[in-house]
């Protein structure tokens, strides 16, 4: 015997019916997720004006690198009189929803970084189909045109990796530790692969960028465990500082090099503790797409002739660090 009072019959009947109602609705009008279909063609648009552009990246909020991209996009918006909305999420599903959101808002252009291109594909194609021009930046170079974006602005990660590997090989190093800081980032893997291709003898190490203590001690541990490592390549400026400290604490003679800049990296290059930084000039990845969208929408101009616009690799080392230092401090390099 249960102590349950009788609920009104109608609510019970309704709640029992609910799943069936939903199922019936699902059967009513439904379209599948779509298999490998060719990309939608950009609906030819007439020349018009650009009022607002949405920038959706995969950088986690507070990331030094993406802060520069954001500054670039906002500066371009200010210079051209365009409203720029910057949003970011490291989760690809969330990023896809942010793109959908921009389409729902009816922006005049979308700028997307595609760390996980497959996941963003439906949303990017939806934007293209809605007649909104898309520029991809930073990652997703090879999928950019396939999804219907009209240009990609970034740095080819494997080429940049190879350039870094070559420079370390030129510095007569023999064994490299490549430090990967984001488990889900394809670009990071491409950098290490490129560096390995040009350099040779390499081991990779996985660290967590959100936990600097852990990153530093893991690099230190790797150096202590294998004394023959004489080069450390980090893929991010925040990890670079940890790498420099780890080398010092481990009493290792390894040369440290990194991708990307921040003021710690500038200081370390000045002090001679860091050989060089591969600079992909990400300020351009924020600034240029806004300009390109403006040109495209107002004058139907395209740039690059179907090839990506390369913003890197540039190198910052002892020879040019002084000139770049002030620019890093103001958040534009």
């Amino acid at each position: 015997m249960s102590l349950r009072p009788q609920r009104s019959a109608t609510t019970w009947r309704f709640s029992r019916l609910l799943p069936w109602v939903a199922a019936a609705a699902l059967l009513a009008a439904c379209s599948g997720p779509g298999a490998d279909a060719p990309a939608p063609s950009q609906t030819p648009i007439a020349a018009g004006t650009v009022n607002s552009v949405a920038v959706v990246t995969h950088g986690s909020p507070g990331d030094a690198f993406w802060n520069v991209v954001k500054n670039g996009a906002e500066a371009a918006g200010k210079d051209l009189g365009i409203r720029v909305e910057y949003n970011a999420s490291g989760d690809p599903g969330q990023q896809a929803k942010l793109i959908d959101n921009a389409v729902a808002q009816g922006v005049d252009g979308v700028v997307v970084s595609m760390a996980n291109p497959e996941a963003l594909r439906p949303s990017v194609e939806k934007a293209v189909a809605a007649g909104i021009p898309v520029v991809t930046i930073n990652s997703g170079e090879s999928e950019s045109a396939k999804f219907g974006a009209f240009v990609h602005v970034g740095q080819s990660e494997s080429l940049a990796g190879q350039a870094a590997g070559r420079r370390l090989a030129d510095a007569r190093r023999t064994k490299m530790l490549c430090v990967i800081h984001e488990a889900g980032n394809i670009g990071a893997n491409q950098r290490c692969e490129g560096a390995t291709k040009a350099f040779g003898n390499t081991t990779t190490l996985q660290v967590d960028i959100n936990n600097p203590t852990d990153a530093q001690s893991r690099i230190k541990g790797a150096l202590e465990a294998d004394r023959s490592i004489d080069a450390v390549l980090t893929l991010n400026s925040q990890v670079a500082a940890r790498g420099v400290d780890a080398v010092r604490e481990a009493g290792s003679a390894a040369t440290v090099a990194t991708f990307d800049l921040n003021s710690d990296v500038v200081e370390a290059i000045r002090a001679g503790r860091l050989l060089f930084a591969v600079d992909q000039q990400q300020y351009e990845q924020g600034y240029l797409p806004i300009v390109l969208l403006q040109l495209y929408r107002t004058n139907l101009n395209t740039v690059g002739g179907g090839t990506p616009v390369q913003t890197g690799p540039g190198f910052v080392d002892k020879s040019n660090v002084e000139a770049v230092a002030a620019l890093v401090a103001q958040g534009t390099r």
Partner: protein
Amino acid sequence: MTVATKTSDTTQERSAGLSPLQRLAVRPEIGAALGALLVFVFFSIITDRFLSPLGVATWLDDASTLGIMAVAVALLMIGGEFDLSAGVMTASTALVTALLAVHAGWNVWFALLASLVFALVVGAFNGWVVMRTGLPSFIVTLGTFLALQGLNLGVTRLVTGTVQVSGVRSADGYQSAGWVFASTLDIGEAHIQASVVWWVVLTALAAIILVRTRFGNWIFAVGGALPSARAVGVPADRTKILLFMGTAFAGWVVGSSNILRFASVQANQGVGLELHYIIAAVVGGCLLTGGFGSAVGAAIGALIFGMARQGIVFARWDSDWFMLFLGVLLLAAVLVNNRFQKRAERVRR
């Protein structure tokens, strides 16, 4: 045939002499419902895009996968336990499906079945260890969480040499499986994702289980007073193990809809989301101490999350402040819940 009573029923019984308004105020989901209404009205006024068909589809979509998990986590929390491995489970199941379908060449349906079995085994293991050892589920599932995170990365890199698995679109059976988990339902201009339908159906199912079945009584009983529940013959171990399997199952549903919709999965997906599920359940009126809460409330909690997340973007606020807003919002929701709960206690006395 059980003597264990349920909180919500007790309130209903004792509140027989109360006004309808008071009766409403003692329901666990009332705080969340008011919060959702507030957030909804707020963003509708601030930005007209929020109520456009595309806009509605976007925030429902955002709330859906969170909601599916929050509902399962709410049942578990009413049963007095936590599952911290729920977030990473969404990635593990997607990875198992993707690896089998893409790299082993299985039909997607068989891959889905295999990942379902995997999820249920992990869920049962969680429940079994918790009940067997008497350790807090917080600790046990934290262990599972870390283990799964390592497995996700290790196995993915071992098999693919990279950290993402993609290419599901060209696997056998993708079309039909995709139709079930990742199709869109067009109502006018709004493209409603299949995950939204799953969310509604699973919420209804969970609500029915909770308030209409003997098993629902057992959930309240083992969460409210375990020794007493055992004393009156409630199969506590079976109940809790099933609840852990429930969160794992929800993880499988979300993982499957993610992999089939986005056609790729990253090894680090889902980390940190387990706290969002717990927050959504708590906003929906679940107590951290167990024995009180509602499935519908958890679904509404997820809805608040989705509306706020997308609403902030629609309102074109600077995304730097996003987390602050979310934190304040959640705190406010929980405080309101707390007030209502205290009132409910008073009414019951």
